């Protein structure tokens, strides 16, 4: 298979072209990534843009309001609420900013690494030649639609001059912010956790997996979606029980 790739190797498409292709012509992008599985560009783009947005968000947010808004989503009695408020208020806004910046970036990285590890494991079982690095590149590039969420966050922050902006309201492309609301707070949390770019990224991963392993759509969907269904299933179970 590697020989076949070598035989049909194309000219480098360029990082910007690959990024555009991921969004509009994913097949071309996956062919390019199969030959040149670059990682630094999408990694830097996603991590740095996330850190920048979080930095801006925690710089403008009304800290007292943020604490109350965060605690409002948690089921606590009055005494526990007051204790939690005091504990959160004892931390400075800068501490929160640093925590938000780094936890956001590290969180994304951890998810990508786990996803890459999972894909490399399943592909190895199938006897594919792709290594962890190849899958990590694929996951990073298929995560690029997340940049639309980043753009949306920037727009949302710019529209909030008083700083009373909840972290869940940041991304205008989450299902919750696109109108899917529920009286159940856990379900709302699920809707807050799923966004259109995320679904787009999953779809791209399925396509990439299928193209790289030359397998059926059903198999690609089963492999890629399995962890999502597992996590969402557990989440929904606890939300609805």
């Amino acid at each position, binding site marked *: 298979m590697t020989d076949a790739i070598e035989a049909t190797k194309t000219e480098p498409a360029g990082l910007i072209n690959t990024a555009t292709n991921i969004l509009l012509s994913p097949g071309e992008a996956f062919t390019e990534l199969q030959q040149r599985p670059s990682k630094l560009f999408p990694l830097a783009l996603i991590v740095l843009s996330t850190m920048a947005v979080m930095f801006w968000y925690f710089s403008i947010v009304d800290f007292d309001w943020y604490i109350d808004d965060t605690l*409002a989503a948690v089921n606590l009695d009055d005494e526990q609420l007051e204790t939690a408020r005091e504990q959160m208020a004892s931390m400075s806004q800068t501490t929160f900013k640093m925590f938000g910046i780094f936890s956001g970036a590290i969180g994304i990285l951890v998810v990508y690494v786990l996803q890459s590890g999972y894909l490399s494991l399943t592909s190895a079982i199938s006897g594919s030649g792709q290594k962890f690095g190849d899958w990590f590149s694929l996951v990073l590039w298929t995560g690029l639609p997340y940049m639309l969420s980043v753009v949306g966050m920037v727009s949302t922050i710019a529209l909030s001059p008083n700083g009373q902006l909840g972290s869940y309201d940041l991304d205008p492309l989450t299902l919750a912010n696109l109108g899917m609301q529920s009286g159940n707070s856990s379900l709302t949390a699920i809707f807050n956790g799923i966004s259109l770019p995320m679904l787009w990224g999953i779809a791209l991963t399925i396509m990439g997996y299928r193209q790289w392993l030359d397998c059926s759509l059903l198999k690609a969907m089963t492999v890629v979606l399995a962890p999502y269904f597992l996590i969402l299933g557990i989440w929904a179970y606890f939300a609805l029980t």
Partner: protein
Amino acid sequence: MNAKKLVLVLLLAGTVIALPYINRSVFGTDAKVVNVSTLSQRVISPSILASGFLAHEEEVMLSSEVIGKVSELFVEEGDTVTAGQLLLQVDDKNFIAGLEQSEAAERINTIDIERQEVRIENLSRQFERSRSLHERKMIGDNEFDNLKNQLDLARIDLKSSTERLTQARAQLDQVNDNLSKTKIVSPIEGVITSLDIKVGETAIASSTNIPGSSLMTIANPASIYTEVLVDEADVANIQIGQRTEIVAIAYPDQPMQGVVRYIANTAKIAPGRQGLSFTVKIEITDAGDVTLRPGMSCRAEIFTRQDQEVVAVPIQALIFEEDRSALRSEYFIFVNDGGIARKTKVEVGISDDEYQELMTTIDDSIEIVVGPNQELRHLLEGDRIDTTIVELQ
């Protein structure tokens, strides 16, 4: 890069950027759900809070003036006693022995004086005879002088014996006094509030706080009062006769009524406090169903002015802003301006726990945002509000 793709990407990004704008334009921002109310007249009783404890005005702590084992105890804690009632007996065997010794000493001295007097009488007669004989030159000077000297010495001995008798009587009085101190009697009418000694224990004459030094405490239950510490910043507002509401910690839902009776002249630093405070004594005029026990912790609310009916707002509706660098502090309220919160500066007056007088004249029809606190804390000028009219209690 293909221009068509670039345009598509830009269109996509543009749509996402526009999404929050479109959302806000079409649906607007979320209105904050708040409670509003119009202004009303309200009785405000400005007060000062102070904490302290219950104590007895008439209270004595008995201690022994003699050292000895307690042989009998005639009372129990909680007993009512009268002034002069025998409460406790310290073993008096030693004191009785001492008394007998002193009485014997007195008797011995009395006998000694009698003997001295007899001796002087005898010597006086001898001296008179000797003088007659000496005048007639029938006895020599030496013999006469010896007799005179014996008479003088006998008189001195009598004086000495008389003084010894005085000393013995004083000693007897002292022993009697000590003996009387073995019987502890109540100096006042009251109740035994604390009994710190038992039969068989040794009562110790001491002012230090060691076991045995304190026998019991007697207090007049009718003289119970509240002693609180008022911060020096508030003391200027306290006056004798002011109405007070006292809440004992043990009876949080049963306030008692009282009147300020005493304000200390001198400030002191109370234990556990940093600033100076004045002791204020409050007479309890109506204890209600509260069982008063001295030492109980309590909180007193001293009403510093007569109840007045004024235009007032709930304290939580007032926003306090302070600029320390400019030495400026201001109060604001939020009023409902057709669904928009408008921050309005106001002047305030007296306050109680829940309401504060509004000095600024505001039209009766204007709705003021009064809650909930969760929303009020973060309400901003120009925020959209969804109002619910509430009746203030």
